[in-house]
């Protein structure tokens, strides 16, 4: 494995030939505390949903623990990275790790897309026609109804489905351009053009935030004017579950982008070594692709 970085070499007086020494971190209490925080959050949420007063306080405590540990843990990793603990070998581990993490996220979304496919193609048509060959239905008033209007189900509440060509189309444009701006920023990093890098990242974050703003407005509109709620049959259920989890991922991605932006402003990353930047960019592209799926399957078709 070729050694490319003089800077790293100086912090590693090399009695190790490159590629023979793998960085195994010191013992750390972060994982244990993080698990404890997650326990509190889960416990609190369960109690909260079952109307125990203590629930929200326990949730709050859990969230506090989680945030504190996450900030410290990532701080530690950034410190290790800046002080040269990671070389190509470790870098590759992070890359593999991020790819497989994103794939697990893909599987998570697949569950909801699968549910959408199932209700649209199987359960709703079945309920509407029961036995197609015998032309028999329990719910005559639904017989010729097409998705999305039929998505309220036989006993569902009335609602207006969300159209595709208003805010969702704008949001598609926003996210697609944010995919372009982050690539633009990446090119800048490769050319060592820091101004373009920072600008590109800033634009990406801005587009992400505007996207979230629009989505917030869309939800408000759905609840107050369209009668479209989580309870609005399977249409409402799949709509809010898919767009909601996507929005949550955009939020996470935006926070990750902000961290990367802060690091760029501090002058972190070089043209050769910037896993964190690329990891976040991959994540952002993943969120982008999921949105395309949503736009087509949830809003458009």
């Amino acid at each position: 494995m070729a050694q490319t970085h003089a800077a790293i070499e100086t912090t590693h007086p090399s009695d190790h030939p490159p590629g023979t020494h793998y960085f195994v971190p010191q013992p750390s209490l972060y994982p244990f505390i993080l698990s404890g925080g997650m326990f509190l959050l889960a416990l609190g949420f369960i109690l909260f949903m079952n109307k125990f007063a203590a629930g929200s306080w326990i949730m709050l405590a859990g969230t506090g623990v989680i945030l504190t540990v996450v900030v410290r843990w990532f701080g530690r990793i950034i410190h290790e990275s800046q002080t040269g603990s990671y070389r190509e070998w470790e870098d590759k581990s992070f890359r593999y790790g991020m790819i497989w993490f994103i794939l697990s996220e893909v599987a998570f979304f697949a569950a909801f897309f699968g549910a959408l496919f199932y209700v649209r193609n199987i359960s709703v048509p079945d309920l509407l026609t029961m036995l197609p060959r015998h032309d028999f239905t329990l719910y005559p008033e639904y017989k010729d109804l097409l998705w999305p209007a039929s998505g309220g189900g036989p006993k569902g509440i009335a609602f207006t489905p969300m159209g595709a060509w208003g805010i969702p189309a704008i949001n598609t444009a926003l996210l697609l351009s944010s995919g372009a701006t982050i690539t633009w920023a990446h090119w800048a990093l490769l050319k060592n053009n820091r101004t373009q890098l920072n600008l590109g990242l800033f634009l990406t974050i801005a587009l992400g935030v505007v996207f979230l703003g629009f989505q917030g407005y869309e939800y408000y509109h759905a609840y107050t004017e369209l009668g479209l709620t989580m309870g609005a049959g399977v249409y409402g259920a799949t709509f809010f579950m898919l767009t909601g989890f996507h929005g949550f991922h955009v939020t996470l991605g935006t926070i990750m982008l902000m961290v990367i932006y802060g690091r760029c402003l501090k002058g972190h990353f070089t043209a050769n070594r910037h896993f964190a930047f690329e990891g976040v960019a991959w994540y952002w592209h993943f969120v982008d692709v999921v949105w395309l799926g949503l736009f087509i399957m949830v809003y458009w078709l």
Partner: protein
Amino acid sequence: MSHATTAPHETHHDAHYPGGIMRWLTTTNHKDIGSMYLTFALIMFFVGGAMILAVRAELFQPGLQLMQPEFFNQLIGIHALVMIFAALMPAATGFANWQIPLMIGAPDMALPRINNWGFWLLPPAAILLTLPFLLAVFGIGDGALNTGWTMYAPLSVQGGIGVDFAIFSIHILGISSILGSINVIVTIFNLRAPGMTMMKLPIFCWGWLITAFLLIATIPVLAGAVTMLLTDRHFGTHFFNAAGGGDPILFQHLFWFFGHPEVYILLLPVWGLMPHVLATFSRKPMYGYKAQVYSFIAIGLLSVVVWAHHFFTAGLPVPALLYFMYSTMAISLPLAVLFFCWIATMWKGAMSFETPMLFAQGFIIMFGVAGLTGLVLADVAADAQYHHSYFVIAHFHYALFAGGIMGVMTGVYYWLPKWTGYMYDEKLGKLHFWLTVISFNLTFMPQFFLGLAGMPRRIPDYALQFTEFNAISTVGAMILGFSQLIFAWNIWKCARGHANGLAPAEGRAWEGATGLEWELSSPPPHHSWEVQPDLRQPGA
């Protein structure tokens, strides 16, 4: 392994390691973490076992003896979840942690802190799963999950607080599995010794690799399913409610999309370790390495497209029934390849029957029973009769106890000398094996006949004609349960081998054992392969 360094990685100075409990809370060492996984698995094995012994005691006679049906239902569901998620899976992850770095010549797992996190998520999840039992004692809620481990809607939509606890327990267990899987994949891809190509990878690592792929593909789907369950319960959605256009069967699809691959997730690590054991005690190279690797891959791929065989009777259209029947049966082809390779590995070998080899034999025979009865269940026409009967219970206990747990025991006895540095007590090991294998069959063989005769699963009371076989099964279960104390005692004894006057194990603890892990001392040094062994062909 001579090793000298002055690099600023302070990981070499053992003086920096915290002692006592802090060692275990903070460790980033794959061996420590592996030991924690295995210990946790053993403890939970007894917790889950105690639950089911109570169930068997209730089933000793017809009529309600010891408990009310509500409590019975909680015990069976939590038993299954504990055994699958908190005993068998952590045991396999413990193996992965201990063995993969040793076998591929790596210094540690690739992401050590994530590794520690993966373990420490387990105790909170186990607490969440069992806490409702305790809460009910204090009058809070109505006990643990009472739907059986499959959590079918609509029952689970209507259930009490125990369902919520189970949902979040599953979420946390799932995160832990994903972290463990990522670690395994990254370690195998990135930390192999130079010259160890993928087709030279020890087959145990291949088994785990496929397991990890399956976990990453299916655990998130389960997470999605229980999330929909949660929103149906508390946030007014209608995923599993026909009134809003949803469908309870959707839950079954989602659950078994995870659930069927899960059975291979539980077994692939065992199929991976089996050839090593068979080769060692037959003193022959393993037969058909490539065929086995390709079979693993084939089984991995097939396992995600056969899920609906778990609900043939739910009212699927006929073409779907046929498809799921034939695809399920197709899995027995690569499975049969594995069986033939195992047998061929032993063929004309100089076999000896130490405890691991005994367990391996028990595994092969009884796991064969699981596969063959699986084929019976896969037949749509026959399954209408057997579904939801004790026949299914017997089938999957031959798969998961005789296949999974006894496979894990094979591995534990095989590697215990490597881990502890001492030879375990062979006499106790053999006693444990014979008690286990006899009482296991005593417990589960009658259940096949009960199922064939029509006894449904998941009931605390039954018709009089089922009495004798249930009594036999309960006696078997009691022996089976208590025999496992020998296992625990044997491990404990070996772990303190010095105090117990056991013989120290050599680096190559078994005469016929081959592979990198046996080239290290027993127990291996704190940092296994600080300098990677170089397996490249000279001159290549």
